[in-house]
């Protein structure tokens, strides 16, 4: 195994779970999230030599993942929101429990947000520092704070709305 393979393995093992969660939060579907995860890390592999250490490697990978998610849905012209709701319900039927139901509700609520908001809130939920999210999403930190505040409110509102139904 050469140096690049070893480095890639380390990077994959450290970041894959978070990236998968991001993709899952964005699509609400494990299979699609898996495809997006693979596409993201394929790009990481191909561009590893070009990575200049200007930012943290996790930030760089997140940026690739965010762009992958956005490009994927736009290219495919998918109606993510509708598909999401159905697939979440299907996926969760077999493992019904109170907690799973709450998780399904959460994904359903996330799916009602705008594409960019969905990705931002996923990173917030994963407790990424604000400066890193700003770097990944290309929004100034000041604007991002306002945006995050609004998305948090919207998500909480949506979640509580769904929970009441």
């Amino acid at each position, binding site marked *: 195994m050469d140096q690049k393979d070893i480095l890639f393995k380390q990077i994959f093992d450290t970041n894959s779970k978070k990236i998968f969660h991001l993709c899952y939060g964005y699509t609400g579907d494990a299979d699609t999230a898996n495809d997006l995860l*693979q596409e993201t890390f*394929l790009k990481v592999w191909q561009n590893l030599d070009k990575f200049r250490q200007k930012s943290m490697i996790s930030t760089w990978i997140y940026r690739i993942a965010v762009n992958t998610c956005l*490009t994927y849905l736009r290219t495919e012209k998918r109606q993510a929101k509708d598909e999401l709701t159905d697939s979440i319900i299907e996926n969760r039927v077999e493992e019904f429990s109170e907690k799973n139901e*709450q998780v399904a509700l*959460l994904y359903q609520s996330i799916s009602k947000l705008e594409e960019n908001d969905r990705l931002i809130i996923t990173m917030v*939920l994963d407790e990424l520092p604000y400066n890193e999210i700003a770097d990944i999403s290309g929004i100034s930190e000041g604007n991002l704070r306002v945006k995050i505040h609004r998305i948090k409110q919207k998500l909480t509102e949506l979640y509580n709305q769904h929970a009441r139904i």
Partner: protein
Amino acid sequence: MQEFKDIQSLWQSHSVEVKISSGEMLEQAKKEVNAIRTKSLFNIGGMVGSFAAISATLLYFDFNSWTTTLGIGIIILAVAIYTIILYREHLLISKNDFTENPGIFLGKLRQYQLSRYNLYNKLYWFYVIAISLGFILFFLETLQNLGSAMQLSIVMFTVLWMAFCATILRKAFIKREKERIDLLIEKFERIDAQFKGQ
């Protein structure tokens, strides 16, 4: 009524499992390209086999008429030219590693698709005409000692088989191959666009 911090802890308590390892991931991505390469190699292998089998008839059978030799010669030539074209197409996709440079690979893949399209359209008809002419010349001697019914059956079978290959089989093959390469191109376009966006 839930607060955002409750939602956040719910999110964090939901553990996700990544079902793929780094090694498997690269392997899987490469598999799709390899499937097309393998198919292309099998195609060439089949043509080389046909070339060898038809050439062997000239070596192991003693034909009296020049028409038979000419017929077999035409078939051999057509098969050889077609095989060379297939091999050149194969080189388009086999010489490039998509993990090294997806942009170049994408260009080659498009070139391959266009070349395949020409091969199964314009060039295919030249191939069919050459093979048909070859068979006609070949049958002049080889069928002359058979009964009329047998002659007719062999000629009919050959004509029907070639018509089937040139219509239904060819169209199905073109459609399947186009869908497969389109999917691959679409995937690499997405990857390529992503690089440009970085």
